[in-house]
């Protein structure tokens, strides 16, 4: 039925586009380097940038599973707080094994609970997620209050178990993380079903796939990466104080921006790689703004907000009614 398809020609283009994106990124980095009086592209600063990107990378890897299946969960930040503290508690008892297992167990269990609530109640996940965030924040506050009442404070690692959150081990964690998330997302039926469910529920059902199972699995896998991110986070900060008033929700914006960056480059890079590029770019952006003297907490967030809008426009290009 016809000859070779013209779209086959696009594959050569893709490689070229990858080179162009990376070259463009390098060019931007060079400009920043000059603008920051040659303080940006130094080995030490690059280490800081990549190091700061590790935790958001793990969280974003988790998000691509739950978001792809349509489970927009806004309680991720509060789960990170609880999982980090639980990782710290187990870490002090069982060392690094406890630290990692603690993060994993808390991440997976809380995401499993969220998945159960989202699927059983059929409430839109982002609404139910806000409710769960309030519950998790309150649990954190109760734990914090109880710790203070008993004369202590929330778990603190002090100088123990801090290696996982520091260079080079935190960056080294990216390698197995990248391999694991790539295999799970792109090379297993779990990832395939998650992508299918998020893209077209009707067709997916007709292909004999149980959408609820796929969505629940996406939450569990998300929990694994959130848990790992939380363990590294606890090791990095040493102590993480619980917060209330839905302030943890804002934690999601940086990973969300990374997801959008990865989506906008979806035709050029695999989304798993796109996430790494996104989180490192964001880390580099904040680093550059700091070096340029832009105050954090105000103008840096303004830049992040503008970036979210810009990246969303790019990622939705080609859709009807969106700015070209």
């Amino acid at each position, binding site marked *: 039925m016809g000859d070779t398809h013209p779209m086959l020609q696009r594959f050569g283009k893709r490689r070229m586009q990858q080179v162009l994106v990376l070259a463009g990124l390098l060019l931007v980095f060079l400009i920043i380097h000059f603008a920051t009086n040659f303080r940006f592209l130094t080995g030490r600063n690059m280490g800081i940038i990549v190091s700061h990107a590790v935790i958001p990378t793990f969280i974003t890897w988790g998000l691509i599973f739950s978001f792809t299946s349509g489970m927009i969960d806004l309680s991720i930040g509060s789960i990170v707080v609880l999982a980090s503290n639980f990782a710290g508690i187990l870490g002090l008892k069982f060392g690094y094994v406890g630290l990692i297992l603690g993060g994993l167990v808390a991440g997976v269990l809380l995401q499993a609970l969220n998945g159960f609530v989202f699927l059983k109640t059929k409430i839109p996940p982002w609404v139910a997620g806000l409710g769960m965030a309030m519950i998790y924040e309150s649990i954190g506050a109760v734990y914090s209050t109880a710790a203070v009442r008993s004369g202590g404070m929330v778990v603190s690692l002090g100088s123990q178990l801090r290696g996982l959150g520091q260079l080079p081990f935190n960056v080294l964690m990216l390698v197995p993380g990248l391999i694991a998330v790539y295999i799970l997302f792109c090379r297993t*039926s779990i990832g395939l079903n998650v992508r299918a469910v998020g893209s077209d529920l009707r067709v997916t059902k007709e*292909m004999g796939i149980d959408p609820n199972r796929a969505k629940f699995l996406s939450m569990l896998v998300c929990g694994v990466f959130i848990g790992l991110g939380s363990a590294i986070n606890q090791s990095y900060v040493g102590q993480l104080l619980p917060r209330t008033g839905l302030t943890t929700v804002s934690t999601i914006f940086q990973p969300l921006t990374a997801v959008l960056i990865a989506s906008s480059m979806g035709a050029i890079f695999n989304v798993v790689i796109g996430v790494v590029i996104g989180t490192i770019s964001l880390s580099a952006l904040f680093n550059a703004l700091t070096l340029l003297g832009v105050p954090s907490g105000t103008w840096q967030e303004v830049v992040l907000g503008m970036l979210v809008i810009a990246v969303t426009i790019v990622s939705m290009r080609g859709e009807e009614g969106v700015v070209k």
Partner: protein
Amino acid sequence: MTKSFSLSVADVSKSFGPTRAVIDVSLDFRAGEIHGLIGENGSGKSTLLSMIAGIHTRDKGQMFKGGQPYDPVSPAHANEQGVSMVVQELGLVDGLTVAENIFLGKTDQFANRGVINLRKMHRAAEEAFAAWGISQVPLDVFASSLTVEEKKLVELVRALSTDPDVLILDEITAAFSHNNRTALYKLLAKLKAQGKLILFVSHNLPEALQLCDRLTVLKDGEKVDTLDSKGLTEDELKRLMVGREIKETYFYTPAKNENAEPVLVADGITVDGVLHNVSFELRRGEVLGLGGLSDSGIHELGKVLFGLTRADQGQVIFADTGERIDSLRKAINSGIAYVPKDRDTEALMVRATIEDNLCLPSVDAFVGPLGFLSPRKRKKFAGEQLEAFEIKASGIRQAVNQLSGGNRQKVSLASWLSRPNKIIILDSPTRGVDVGITANIYKLIAEVKQQGIGIILISDELPELIGCSDRILIMKNGAVARIFERAEGFSENSIVEVMI
């Protein structure tokens, strides 16, 4: 039911709310036959086949396959029992690649300890394309980037990849251009020779008569008759389907003035990689047919003419005002109407009501004295169109996604053709539409032409182009290959020669 029949349905019924879609239908299908199901839109063809394919469960009746009770609970379950279907709607997951779509739900065969071997999966997909002689679509691209025709090819490969002994094709040829249609016929002959049963739905009666061994006519959910196609005529079929004689086919009347001034001028239109220096004029009161193979660019040209796609070079001029049509708004304000080919994603708001869909292109006509939309005018207009286009629905408040494919097409047509137009661009207007309404569309085209309106008829159906057009512009690889004048006498062979 006897064992010689490969598949049988007995007294099968299915209702959707108050609508009785299939009523006590009994049919026997033989192995090694191509069995056509024909009927008007909403006659129950797709619903019956969906029950056989496990998409819908029946309310009543029994099904047997190979002499055994057959009771699929899902399409995957039907697949396991040797039944595959290419549905009338699009059936691919846009966010997955072509290879992933083909084996979605069946990837375990390529997995080692849970990890899918992509190379193995791609090789199997390549083999499936090659085995059935279907031109390969790149396996790594997302389905979202494919055309409707390419999607249907992938769906066909997916259906064949399970090596079914019953293959159900619901209006697949409506999406195919001449070349792929010809290849499909060869493929079906091969499958038939292998003893497979093919259940085939098409509104193209000459195609159904030529391809099928037997034809079952359905009307209003009930079986009218099953007949051997040998010796059967198109007129007899039409009578059985519609319940009345449909004599005239294309209602062609010559253009009032063959040398009428142009109403639309396309001047050197180029869209990189798609269209190359396309120039022509559409005259007032003529039907200009656009034809070509799948990669000819005819459908893309329609979008450029309506301002949906911007040309990289060249221009489209609305001759009455000399205005350059480079946006949708300018096209609509100039009185250009466009009925796209892909009704579900481009033509309709499928979740909205019939009333909303019908009224949207003509919304200015319903504004009352205070500037508000008049519900009374909207209701009256929608009701009139529902009747005029014979849309089978429970009322104007019914959601479009609850209608059959053909009735959706009628809504799409009605919404645009009911406006005061100066130019009408119709892309595959009779795609998935039954003979009764097809005749009405042809009649409408002839009537509209007599009002001095210029019509561009884009079609993959050569007989339709020949039957309706005053001139036929054939495109090849994005460029104008030749314009045939009716006065020269249209010959199908000479047109196909230019196409290929």
